[in-house]
C-alpha cells in the first residue's frame, strides 16, 4: 500500500489521534514503561518495598503504583490512548481504501499502460480488423478469466486478483483493538479464585482472588465439585511427572460431569474452568488406644488436627509427622492438660508402643498405620472475554498474512489500432511480491509472443 497523504481534517482531535507519529510515540512509551514492572517485583507487600528500596523510592513506588505497574492509572491511560489512536487512525483511512478498491481499473487507455513499469508492446503487420476475430479470443484464453471493455477505439482486457487484500490492514489493526476489548471484558466480568479440597471432599463455592468479588470473599459456583482422588507421580530423578485430581461435578445431587484434570488439561463446566495448580500431602495416622479400664479405641486422625479421646475426655492431636524414621513412620503426639496431669508430647514410632498416665488412667498408645492423604489446590476461572481475545488473535495472524502475502495484481492487455496497424500492449502492476509477479508476466509475454509469431502477425 502506498503512503497516504491524508489531507488535513478540520477536527484537531481527529488530526492528533490519527497520526502515526503519535502511534510511534505511544508504542515507545509503552515499551519503555513496561520495563519497570519487570525490574521491580510486582504485587509484594508495602513492607517489602520499603525495606528493599528505602523511603525515597518507596514513596515513588506508592505514588506511581509501581507495585502493580500494569494496572496503574498511568499505564492504563497509555493503553487507552493507544487504542483510541489505533481506532481513529484506522477509521480515518477508510475513505482512502474505499477509493482504492472502487477505482476503475478498466478506465485506462494505452498511454497509461505504456507508462507502467512492466509493459510490452507488439506492432502487428496487419490492420486490426483483419485479425481481431482470432486475436481477441486467443488473448482472452492466454490471460484467463479476464474482464473486458471497449477503450479508445480498441478493447481492454483486465485480469485482477487480491483486490480485497487492502482490507488486511483493517483486520490486523482492528484485531489489536479486539484483543484489548476482550481483556477489558475479562477484567470487568471475569471471576477467578482458588479451591482447596481434601480427597473425598466437595465444595459449592470458591475463594475469590480478584475480578468480580473482593479478594478473599466466597463466590458461589451454582453446583458442587468433588475431588475423588489426588495422584502425584515422580520420575526416577525426583522431578514431578504428574499431578492429577479426579474431579466430579454434582448438580442438584446428580453426577453431571467427571474428569481427571492435570496441569495442562483443565475441566470446564458452565463457563467455569478448574485448573490443577498445587497440592499438599496430609498424613493420616491410624492410632490405637488401650485404656487401663479395658476400653480399646481405634481412630484415624489427620495430622495437625485436634480430637477428643473418648473414654478419658482428654484432647489430643498430631503436631509433627515424619514418613520415614529408620524405615517406619513416626508422629509427635500431644495430649492436653487433664485434671492433675500437665500437657505432654512425645514421639510415637510405628512398632514401638508408649504407655502414658493421664489422670488416674494408664493409656497405651500405638501407631497401627500411617498413610498419605492429599489436598488438591485448584484454580477457578470464569472469563467471558477469553473468546474475544482468541478471535482477535486469529484476526491478527490472518491480518498479518493478508497484509504481507496476498498481493493485489492486475494484468492488462489492450488491442487497438495505430497508424492503420494493429497494436497489442501487455502491462501489469502488483502492490507486493513484485519479483514473482514479473516472472508471471514474463511467461505471459512469451506465450503471446509465440502465438503472434506462429501466425506471422509480427
Amino acid at each position, binding site marked *: 500500500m502506498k*503512503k497516504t497523504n491524508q489531507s488535513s481534517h478540520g477536527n484537531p482531535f481527529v488530526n492528533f489521534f490519527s497520526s*502515526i*507519529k503519535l*502511534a*510511534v510515540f505511544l*508504542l*515507545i512509551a*509503552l*515499551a519503555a514503561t*513496561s*520495563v519497570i*514492572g*519487570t*525490574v521491580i*517485583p*510486582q504485587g509484594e507487600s508495602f513492607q517489602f518495598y520499603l525495606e528493599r528500596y528505602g523511603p525515597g523510592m518507596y514513596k515513588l513506588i506508592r505514588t506511581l503504583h509501581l507495585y502493580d*505497574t*500494569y494496572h496503574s492509572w498511568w499505564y492504563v491511560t497509555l493503553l487507552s490512548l493507544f487504542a483510541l489512536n489505533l481506532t481513529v487512525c484506522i477509521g480515518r483511512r477508510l475513505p482512502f481504501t474505499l477509493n482504492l478498491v472502487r477505482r476503475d481499473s478498466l478506465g485506462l487507455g494505452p498511454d497509461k499502460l505504456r507508462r507502467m513499469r512492466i509493459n510490452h508492446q507488439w506492432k502487428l503487420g496487419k490492420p486490426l480488423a483483419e485479425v481481431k476475430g482470432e486475436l481477441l479470443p486467443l488473448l482472452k484464453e492466454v490471460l484467463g478469466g479476464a474482464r473486458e471493455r471497449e477503450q479508445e477505439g480498441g478493447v481492454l482486457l483486465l485480469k485482477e486478483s487480491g483486490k480485497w487484500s487492502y482490507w488486511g490492514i483493517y483486520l490486523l489493526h482492528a484485531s489489536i483493538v479486539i484483543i484489548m476489548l476482550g*481483556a477489558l471484558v475479562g477484567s470487568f466480568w471475569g471471576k*477467578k479464585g482458588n479451591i482447596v479440597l481434601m480427597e473425598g471432599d466437595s465444595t459449592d463455592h470458591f475463594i475469590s482472588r480478584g475480578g468480580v468479588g473482593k479478594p478473599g470473599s466466597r463466590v458461589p459456583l451454582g453446583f458442587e465439585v468433588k475431588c475423588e482422588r489426588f495422584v502425584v507421580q515422580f*520420575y526416577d*530423578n525426583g*522431578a*514431578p*511427572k*504428574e*499431578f492429577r485430581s479426579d474431579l466430579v461435578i454434582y448438580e442438584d445431587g446428580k453426577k453431571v460431569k467427571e474428569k481427571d484434570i*492435570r*496441569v*495442562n*488439561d*483443565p475441566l470446564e463446566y458452565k463457563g467455569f*474452568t478448574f*485448573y*490443577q*495448580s498445587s497440592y499438599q500431602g496430609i498424613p493420616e495416622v491410624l492410632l490405637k488406644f488401650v485404656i487401663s479400664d479395658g476400653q480399646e479405641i481405634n481412630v484415624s486422625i489427620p495430622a495437625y488436627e485436634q480430637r477428643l479421646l473418648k473414654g478419658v475426655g482428654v484432647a489430643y492431636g498430631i503436631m509433627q509427622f515424619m514418613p520415614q524414621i529408620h524405615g517406619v513412620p513416626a508422629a509427635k503426639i500431644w495430649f492436653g492438660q487433664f485434671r492433675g496431669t500437665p500437657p505432654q508430647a512425645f514421639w510415637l514410632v510405628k512398632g514401638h508402643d508408649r504407655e502414658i498416665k493421664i489422670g488416674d488412667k494408664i493409656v497405651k498408645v500405638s501407631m497401627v498405620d500411617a498413610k498419605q492423604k492429599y489436598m488438591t489446590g485448584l*484454580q*477457578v*476461572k470464569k472469563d467471558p472475554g*477469553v473468546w474475544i*481475545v*482468541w478471535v482477535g*488473535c486469529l484476526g*491478527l*495472524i490472518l491480518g*498479518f*498474512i493478508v497484509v*504481507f502475502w496476498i498481493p493485489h495484481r492486475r494484468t492488462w492487455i489492450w488491442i487497438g489500432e495505430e497508424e492503420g496497424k494493429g497494436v497489442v500492449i501487455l502491462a501489469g502492476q502488483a502492490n507486493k511480491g513484485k519479483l514473482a509477479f514479473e516472472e508471471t508476466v514474463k511467461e505471459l509475454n512469451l506465450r503471446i509472443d509465440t502465438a503472434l509469431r506462429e501466425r506471422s502477425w509480427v
Partner: protein
Amino acid sequence: MGITNSTLLGFSTFIYLGAAFLYLLHWVFRLKKVGVLATGVTVLGLLVQTAGILLRWVESYKMGYGHAPLSNLYESLVFFAWCTVLVYLVLEWRIKTRVVGAFATPFAAMSMAYASFSPRVRDSIEPLIPALQSNWLIAHVITCFIGYAAFAVACGLGIMYLVRGDSKGDGIISSLPERRVIDSLMHQTIIFGMIWLSTGIITGAVWANQAWGTYWSWDPKETWSLITWIVYGVTLHARFVQGWRGKKIAVLSIIGFLSVFFTYFGVNFLLSGLHSYGSQ
C-alpha cells in the same frame, strides 16, 4: 558407545564455525568459489544438526521420557541455531547473493558454541515437569524461535547496512548489496519475524491459559516479549514517519534483536518468573 546426539551436535557446531569463516573469506576476498563452498558447508551443517536433533528425540524416548527436544536452555539454543541457518539459507536461495552469510551464520555458530561449551548450559536430556507437558508449548517454542531466527538475520542485515554506509568505489564494503536492497530485505525479514513472534506470543498465551488459567499474567518473560513485539511494530511504522529510512531502521533492527536477546537470556538470568529455562 555409538554416535549420540551430542556427537552430532558437537560436529555441527564446528561445521557452522567453519561456514561462518568461509562466508567471511568469501566477502572479504570476493572469491566466488569460497562462497559456493560456504553454502555447501552450511547445508552439511544443517543436515548433521537435523540428524542430531532427531537422534536426541529418539534418545529421549529410549530413556523413557519421550519428548520433543525443545524443553530446556540447551535444546532451545540448538533449535535457535537450526532456525537461523534455515531462514538464512532460504534468504540466500531467494536473493542469490552470499554476502549476507557473513552477517547471519555467525549467530548460529555462536549459539551452538555457547550451548556446547558454556558451563551454565546443561546438555542432559531431562524429563518434562507437568507444566511443560503440552502441545501448545511445542507450538509456542517453534514459532517463537523461527521469529527469533528471522530477527537475528534482520539484525545481521542491519549491521551490514551500517557497515556499508555511503561508501562508493570498489572496496570490500561496496561489494555488499546496494543499500536500497538491504533496506527492503531487512523490512521483509522483520515482517516475517513479526508474524512468527506474534504467533509465538499467542500460542504461549493459549498454553498459559490451559496450564494456569490466565492467558496473560505480565510475568517478566511475557512482558519482554511484548516489548520486543512493540519495538518491531515501531520499526514497521517508522517507515511512514518522515525521515525514518535506512539507517534508523537498521538501528531499530539491531535494538530489536537486543530486545530478543534480553527476552531470551536476560530474563532468565537477571529477572525471575514462570519461564525458568536455565535458571537451574
